[in-house]
């Protein structure tokens, strides 16, 4: 009950009032994600938020801590250590931190859902994606379709699958694998390819170039691509999954090359994740995926920006 005669009023009252239904949507999404994985027999885990040895990445910056170490950019390494110990199906919903990322679809701290399957590959993850999004849409009454930013979305329409090569040939007119250009790959992807992906149903972009493998396994029959895919819906990148690289030597080599690259670019360096590399020596074939929960809520709530689905969005610094 609002008290009309009182002058006790906080300026953010208006913005927080406006967000009420979207924050309720957010709560339902989180609840239904947990419901889905529980039904599938996954174990919910929690791993550290602070780390001393993040996965070396060329284009992801951790937020350093005064007392040493940094905040995690993803719970990936810890989750794979659980897999190596024989945990077969695990998921986690946690806050991760990435320095300097701020836009309508990026926050420097955001909610990530990651799930992993032991003795499995990316095909099983793609099936999970379909099952999960259909389950969540049902839970939040979006199973019969709705409009997002003027475009019709429908989780039950057929899901398309495009290889990176096919999508570039169709929307940008060239093959990024034979005409590889590190400088323009992302620009073409963002400006020409992404805007077409995931209407009305979500779509998978598969067979990423080997240069973009990170922690993914190379394709068995084609050394120019890797077993990495992205999930897009309404032109928004929702998830990044792959069949995990389980070759400790190869992973160390990739990390070392990234660390060298970072040193050259004068970027902060962290310790090599030795415990993780050790765990790879016993890790069986497995697959894992990370999905941006805030973006999913944004789509389901027909919100133009992440700021609309987070109670207190971070400032532009």
């Amino acid at each position: 009950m609002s008290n009309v005669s009182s002058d006790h009023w906080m300026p953010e009252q208006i913005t927080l009032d406006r967000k009420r239904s979207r924050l309720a949507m957010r709560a339902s999404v989180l609840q239904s994600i947990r419901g889905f994985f529980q039904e599938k027999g996954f174990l919910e885990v929690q791993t550290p938020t602070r780390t001393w040895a993040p996965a070396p990445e060329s284009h992801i910056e951790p937020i350093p801590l005064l007392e040493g170490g940094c905040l995690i950019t993803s719970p990936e390494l810890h989750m794979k250590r659980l897999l190596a110990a024989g945990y077969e199906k695990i998921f986690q919903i946690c806050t991760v931190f990435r320095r300097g990322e701020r836009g309508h679809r990026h926050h420097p701290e955001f909610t990530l859902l990651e799930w992993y399957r032991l003795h499995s590959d990316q095909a099983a993850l793609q099936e999970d994606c379909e099952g999960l999004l259909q389950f969540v849409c049902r839970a939040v009454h979006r199973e019969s379709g709705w409009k997002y930013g003027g475009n019709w979305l429908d989780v039950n329409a057929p899901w398309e699958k495009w290889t990176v090569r096919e999508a570039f040939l169709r929307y940008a007119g060239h093959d990024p694998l034979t005409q590889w250009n590190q400088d323009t790959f992302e620009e073409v992807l963002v400006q020409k390819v992404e805007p077409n992906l995931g209407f009305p149903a979500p779509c998978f972009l598969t067979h990423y170039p080997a240069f973009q493998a990170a922690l993914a396994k190379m394709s068995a029959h084609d050394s120019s691509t890797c077993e990495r895919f992205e999930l897009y819906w309404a032109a928004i990148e929702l998830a990044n999954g792959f069949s995990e690289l389980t070759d400790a030597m190869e992973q160390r080599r990739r990390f070392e090359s990234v660390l060298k690259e970072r040193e050259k670019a004068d970027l902060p360096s962290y310790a090599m994740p030795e415990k993780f590399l050790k765990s790879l020596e016993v890790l069986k074939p497995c697959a894992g995926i990370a999905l941006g929960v805030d973006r999913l809520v944004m789509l389901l709530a027909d919100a133009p920006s992440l700021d609309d689905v987070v109670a207190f969005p971070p400032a532009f610094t």
Partner: protein
Amino acid sequence: MAVLTASDLRKGLKLEIDGEPYIIVDFEFSKPGKGQALYRCRLKNMITGSQFDRTYRSGDKFNSADLEEQEYQFLYKQDNSYHFMNTSNYEQIELSTDTVGDAVNFLTENLVVSILLFEGRPIGISLPNFVTLRVVQSDPGIKGDTAAGTTKPATLETGFVIQVPLFVEQDETLKIDTRTGTYVERVK
């Protein structure tokens, strides 16, 4: 002139490109997958108003636009021009409706504002963060009507309409945040 990097780019930032001042009117940060960050900007020439899009990447460097701000007091409006007086040398200048832009929603006589000068030419106006304005019209709020929300519209003396809490009454004076165009508090 300060040197800026790609991570400084954001909406509202003023840059100098080829000797002309530009403001970023639309900005989108994007970062596909595990790839590098792209800073997509829509730049508006602060003099001609013409716009173009450009994508920058980490590592790119820029010069900030060399602009000067001076304090002026708003005197009066005549036809489509707004007259201001420099508070230190009493010189008067005239600004067009286009140059004044959205500031018109908050402009009352004697208000002191900053006027942006590029090589001595007025090209824009920036308001104080907060101004006080009188409510000229607002229907009484209905007590306890939480379903309809906790705000109602109110028309200010400049003609601008904002959302206010239900307890605000006609003829009251309000403190307004000019950056967001929103109600802050009542002024006694």
